[in-house]
């Protein structure tokens, strides 16, 4: 019997016995699968253009993203926002079971995030992994790896690109890649 068949049988029993309602299940699945990297990019763009929002995001990310209509429903995880600067670079990994990815904001994690190679190497040789993503950091930059092992999730706010001062939030959001929000790369440079 396949895992999917077994899960469907368990699900049917839970619903039949009144432990869960079918709508609850759909709600949770939707909340895990409908967020997309553009949602996270909109949050980052807002933080870049609104210092008060950025402070709220760093203080209480769960509340701040709800202001923008994101992520409110996943109560069993706790989102933290961290900021990359010229001196400090955060990288997110989940060595135990690939947790840590801010699903409530970016949707399901990409395959590389779940790979054993990434999970083993990110804590052992983060700078080598970063180089493979095209991110070369000098020795003056501290690398801080966040290994998510419980219900913690992390959103990295990448450094705001140079010469992006005049850009509207939607143009800023276009610079924010999925990988930059877990710390594997910088945001895209502004086109000359």
């Amino acid at each position, binding site marked *: 019997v396949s895992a999917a068949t077994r899960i469907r049988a368990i699900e049917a029993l839970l619903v039949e016995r009144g432990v869960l309602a079918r709508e609850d299940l759909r709600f949770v699945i939707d909340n895990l699968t409908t967020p997309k990297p553009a949602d996270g990019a909109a949050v980052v763009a807002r933080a870049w253009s609104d210092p008060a929002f950025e402070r709220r995001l760093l203080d209480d990310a769960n509340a701040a993203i709800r202001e923008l209509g994101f992520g409110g429903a996943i109560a069993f995880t*706790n989102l933290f926002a961290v900021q990359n600067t010229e001196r400090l670079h955060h990288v997110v990994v989940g*060595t*135990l079971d690939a947790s840590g990815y801010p699903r409530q904001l970016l949707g399901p994690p990409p395959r590389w995030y779940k790979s054993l190679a990434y999970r083993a190497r990110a*804590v*052992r*040789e*983060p*700078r080598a992994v970063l180089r493979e993503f095209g991110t070369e950091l000098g*020795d003056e930059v*501290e*690398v*801080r*790896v*966040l*290994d*998510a*092992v*419980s*219900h*913690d999730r992390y959103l990295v706010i990448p450094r705001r690109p140079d010469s992006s001062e005049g850009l509207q939030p939607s143009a800023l959001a276009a610079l924010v890649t999925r990988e930059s929000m877990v710390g594997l790369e910088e945001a895209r440079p502004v086109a000359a």
Partner: protein
Amino acid sequence: MASVLAPGQRVRVRPATASRHHRTPAYVQGRPGTIVRHVGRFKDPESLAYGGDGLPERELYQVAFILRELWDAYAGPGPDSVRVNLYEHWLEHA
């Protein structure tokens, strides 16, 4: 161990006991680290994993481990670190 640990305090991660739900990565078990901050107070995941009520609640701390201390071969700068959220009962005084 005392219920509230202060930032900067040195701690050591207890080795996991195999029979329990112990969310401590193997590479930090038995290793020294430094308390970064108190994250909050949450239901005990070991108890929850076995159908318990999660009580008493446990203090959760973010603990920093210097990569040069974790890995003999680590060639990066001295401040590079990994941070892990760990519950109070998985830590002991260093």
